[in-house]
């Protein structure tokens, strides 16, 4: 899948986009958050408080229990502050 990061999530991880083959044990966004957090470093910082994060699957807001497919584009970002 493709992972995208925005705002301070992007800054902590140090990347705006990466390819990430969906591991077998990762079924939902919540699972993905745990897997990414376990990478440590900036990932651990970015995903330290998942409640502060929002996610989108294929450019639509998604809940953390939403299921993932390897062809998905998944984005993580802070609560939005446009307007």
């Amino acid at each position, binding site marked *: 899948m493709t992972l995208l990061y925005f705002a301070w999530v992007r800054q902590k991880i140090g990347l705006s986009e990466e390819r990430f083959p969906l591991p077998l044990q990762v079924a939902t966004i919540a699972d993905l958050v745990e897997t990414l957090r376990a990478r440590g470093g900036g990932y651990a910082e970015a995903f330290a408080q998942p409640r502060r994060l929002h996610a*989108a699957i294929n*450019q639509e*807001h998604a809940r953390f229990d939403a299921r993932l497919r390897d062809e998905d584009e998944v*984005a993580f970002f802070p609560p*939005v*502050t*446009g307007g």
Partner: protein
Amino acid sequence: MRAIRIQTADFDPGAECSALAAGRPGIGAVVAFTGLVRGDDGLSALTLEHYPGMSEREIARHVEEAETRWPLQGVAVIHRVGSLVPGERIVLVAVASAHRRAAFEAAEFLMDYLKTRAPLWKQERRGAKTEWIEASDADEDAAIRWRRA
């Protein structure tokens, strides 16, 4: 007519409103909201980031919802991204309808949803210090009141 644009360039609110109503005599009301960068507490600049593709789609979804709730004849939503200084225009929501009430209400609905759902983020700069703005509960409450029972 529907125009949704995310751009770094400035826009002309008057020209956008004229374009919405041009050649369509059934339009009796155009309501436009223009948001400006407010230079309070020593703010020197705002930098806006967005999720290209999703921001346009998310705005389009809310414009479609507005069109089901009010009899609208035209909507323009323009949001700037990049670096902006106090006093600069940042966002335009313009709505055209036969009568004013629908135009006022739909413009407010769109602004409330833009602030809480469209994937855009503001970073403030004060001198050498930069900080991402935190989402506001007041903005969330403003959007929630539009939910249908």
